[in-house]
Structures are given as structure tokens and as C-alpha cells.
């Protein structure tokens, strides 16, 4: 049996979504509800970490699901359905991110400003406690700083960081979602980690 056929069969048997996807491709909307239920949380977290805004993330996920439903007949099972689906949500989040950046470009200051977290940085969704220092920051506040730093990354770095270090996708899966070779995914990721670390050092002060 040719390797390609074996690979497709393996993907079909490994893909827990295969049955529901098949039903969706026959027009069964109820089967799509199974997929929504199964993937909405992770998709929302991908979008949320990329956008840093809960409502924007919800909108991006809605759009992604609708786009997936409209295009599900064209899904050829060359990859896992989840890979295809998360690729769609990353695209929608990226589009929204660029719109938001374009709108706030002239207002928002860089996180690199000397003012730091208490200055005029892009903290629209991040509450500023007005204090620095490891012991005094609550967990949520630290998370807000991390999210703030993620927001400083360019989209191409941000998405690989979110997908790998937060969501734990493999390099292969990320390459499938973003249509990038693994080497490119890795180089972007390592660069993103280094930039994020520098940002966190600045934001969190004496750290770790």
C-alpha cells in the first residue's frame, strides 16, 4: 500500500473529529455543534492570547467557526481537522490584530517606553496596579504583564509563541496551521522567546 495512502488512513483513524467532519460535509449542522463544543475553548484561548482582549477574541472565534463551516466541504483531510481549524482562528485573530494596531498606532506607546507599565503603554485590557516587584504582584497582575509583553511582539512571532509555549502544539502542527516549514517556526519561536524574556525583565523588574 502506498505510503501516502497509509498516511491518510492514519490521519483518519487518529483524528477524533473525522466522523463529525464527514457528517458536516454532508450538511449536518448538528455534527458541527460537536466540533464547536470540542474546540471552542482552545480556539478562544489562542485568540485571546494573540489579541489580549476577551471580546475581540470571542468575535474572532465566531468568525473562524463560521468560516470553517462554510469551507468544511473543501477540507481534504490532508491534515488533522484541528490543525486546519486552528489555522483559521489564527488567521482571523491576525486580521483583527492588524486592524486594532492600525487604529491605535498613533495613540499607543511602546512597551519599551521608560514609563514602563505605569506609563502610557498599550494596556487597554490590562489593569495597572501601579506597583512593581515580585512579592507584591498578584497572580492575575503578573498574567496581565505577561499578556502585555505578548502584545508587544510582532504578529508572526506572537502566533508561534502562543501556539507553542502556551497551547503546546508541536512544531509540525504549527507548521501545518501557518503553512510554514518547521525551521521557520523554530527560528521565529526562539526569537520570540528572547524578546518576551527581555520584555518581562523590564516589566517585572527584579525577576526571576
Amino acid at each position, binding site marked *: 500500500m502506498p505510503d501516502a495512502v497509509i498516511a491518510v488512513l492514519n490521519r483518519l483513524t487518529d483524528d477524533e473529529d473525522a466522523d463529525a467532519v464527514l457528517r458536516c460535509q454532508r450538511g449536518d449542522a448538528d455534527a458541527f455543534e460537536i466540533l464547536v463544543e470540542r474546540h471552542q475553548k482552545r480556539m478562544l484561548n489562542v485568540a485571546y492570547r494573540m489579541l489580549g482582549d476577551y471580546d475581540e477574541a470571542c468575535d474572532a472565534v*465566531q468568525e473562524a467557526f463560521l468560516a470553517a463551516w462554510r469551507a468544511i466541504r473543501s477540507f481534504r483531510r490532508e491534515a488533522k481537522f484541528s490543525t486546519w481549524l486552528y489555522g483559521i482562528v489564527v488567521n482571523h485573530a491576525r486580521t483583527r490584530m492588524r486592524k486594532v494596531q492600525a487604529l491605535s498606532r498613533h495613540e499607543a506607546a511602546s512597551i519599551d517606553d521608560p514609563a514602563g507599565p505605569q506609563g502610557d503603554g498599550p494596556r487597554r485590557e490590562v489593569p495597572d496596579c501601579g506597583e512593581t516587584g515580585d512579592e507584591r504582584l498578584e497572580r492575575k497582575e503578573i498574567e496581565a504583564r505577561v499578556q502585555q509583553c505578548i502584545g508587544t511582539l510582532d504578529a508572526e512571532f506572537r502566533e508561534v509563541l502562543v501556539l507553542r509555549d502556551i497551547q503546546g502544539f508541536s512544531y509540525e502542527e504549527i507548521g501545518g496551521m501557518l503553512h510554514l516549514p518547521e525551521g521557520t517556526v523554530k527560528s521565529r519561536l526562539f526569537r520570540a522567546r528572547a524578546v518576551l524574556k527581555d520584555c518581562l525583565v523590564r516589566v517585572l523588574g527584579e525577576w526571576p
Partner: protein
Amino acid sequence: MTCREMETRLAARIDGALDGGERERVEAHLKACEDCRRALAELQASDRLLKGLGEVEPPPWLKTRVMARVREEAQGRRSVLRRLFFPLHIKVPIQALAVVLVAVVAWNVYRTGEPEFSRVAPPPAPVQEAPGAAAPAADTVTRDERPPVREKKAFAPPAEQEDRPVRKVEPVRDAAKAGAVASARLPEEAPGKVAPAKDEVRPESGGAAARQEAARGPAAPEQRTQKALTAPPGAAAGRAVGGEAAPAAAPMLSATLSTRPDLDIIVRAKDPPGAADRAEEALRKVGARSIERSTREGRVTLTARIRPEDLEALRENLASLGPLSESAAAAPRTGAPLAVRLEIRSE
């Protein structure tokens, strides 16, 4: 290896993405470089922070909204075909259009196939005549034998037939004047074949028809294929209106032509309409009666009744028009008038 070169390698090291040789070089550098050890510690702490980020929960309305829109679109996708064929506001016009289309096609087929239909149509039944009808030897004329006319006639209600005096040519006035002569000369035809009273043409209506025909003139010969002629249009009109009687010497022939001619004469001429005029004149010269003229597809057909003794004179007159060919349907009765059909064809 410099500290700057170490930057991305340290980022790769935290999830074991370095291969053997590179990993050894990185480890060697780390042992010797305080700054890089600190950078590695920061990267590892950063990684822990990322992995420790809490997850957000989707709002309950997210799935509801997504599925509402998905179901709406699924319904729309299914109903596209339904919208095309099922609602009455689409279905009824489509069906109406189809009916009209079928009717138009059927009409066209009928129109184009009419000559073929007429060719295979059976000969008409003889005209019902009331024996002993009151009108004495009315010189009515039967319709041309051409099949399309018969078909039209067959569909027409009897009342309509009665109301069409234009089909009759000879005014009753002529017939009345010559009636006695006809009954005297041709006793064998007069009693039985006299047209019934209902088929008689009143002088007024016959005259009016003749006037109409005269007014139209020869401009559209095809349109008057059903109209019998006993004279050129002008003469016919004048006679009908002015009451000029037929020559008294002309023998009164049968009131009704038989549906099949006794003799078919085909004349091939260069100019069929002109030749037809001269043929008509020739018929009139030999005292023919009940002359009818019709034109169809470039052929002019004249039907008339002549006395058998005038046949030879007619042949001589027609010979000047072009080559003749004759075919006799049946042997004529002795002394009985001959029903002659002249067909003038283009050479």
C-alpha cells in the same frame, strides 16, 4: 560562540531543540559565562510564566451564536434549490411560460406542416344540397378544392359559412336571368344540383363583396384565393353593381362544380400571373362559367366549366401561353359540361 549568538540557542535549549554538537558547545559556553546563565534562567522563568497562564472560558452564548448562524446558513444552503422550484411565485410563472412555449411550438408545427396535412387530407364530402330547393338554378359556385380551404371550412361553424358571401361569385340576379335557360338546356343538372336556398347569395351582399374585391384589386392575389372570379376584378364589380347580365347566349351550366375536375390542364409559362390572366380570358372566350381563380406558391389555378365542344378552342387559345399537359380524371358524360382545372406553373 558569543553571548549574542547564544541568545536564540538558549531559547532553543529550554525545550531541548538543540542537536548533539550544538548542545555541547552551548553547555560549554554556559559554564564559562555568567550573563548567559542568567539569561537562561530568565528564559526558563518566562517559559514557566507562559505555561502557567490561566485559561479563559468561552461564554455560554458563543456556541449558541455560532450554531444559530451555522444553522441559518445550512438552512439557506438547502433552500436554494427549494427557492428555485417550490414557491408558487416562481413555480407558477415557470409553468405558465412552459404552457405558452408549448402552444407557440405547436402553432409553428401546425403552420409549417399545413401543406403536408392538406396533401394527405381526404377529399371533402359533397356539398349537401336540398333536393327541390326553391331557388331556380341559382348559379352559386362551390369553393375551391384546395385542401387548406377545406380545413378552415371544416372548423368554421355553419352560421359563419352562411355569412360569407364573398365566397359566392355569381349574383343571384345573373342566375335568375339565366335560370330558365339553364334549366332548359341542362335539365340533368338543374334539379339535383341547384344550391339550397341557404347558400344563395343575396344581390346586396354579393355586390358588396364584389366591390370589396374590386377595391382591393390584384395587389394581393394570395389573399383572394377563395374568391371566385367570373371576370377581371373591375368587370366583376361593375357587373355586380350595375346589374349587367351575363350574355344571354351563354349556356347556363351547372350551379355547382363537382369537387374533382374532369380534366386537368397544366400550362407552363414564364409569367404565371400574366399567363393566368390570358388563360382566364381564353376561358371566357369559349363561354366558360363558374370561373374561379386561386394562387398558391407561385402557381395559379383556374377552375371553370365549359361545354365539351369548346374544349378544342380552349386548347388552341391556351397553346399560345406555353406547353400544355393534360390529364383526364374520368370520361365525361356526353353533353355534360366539363369541369376543367387549369394550373399555370412557372417554367
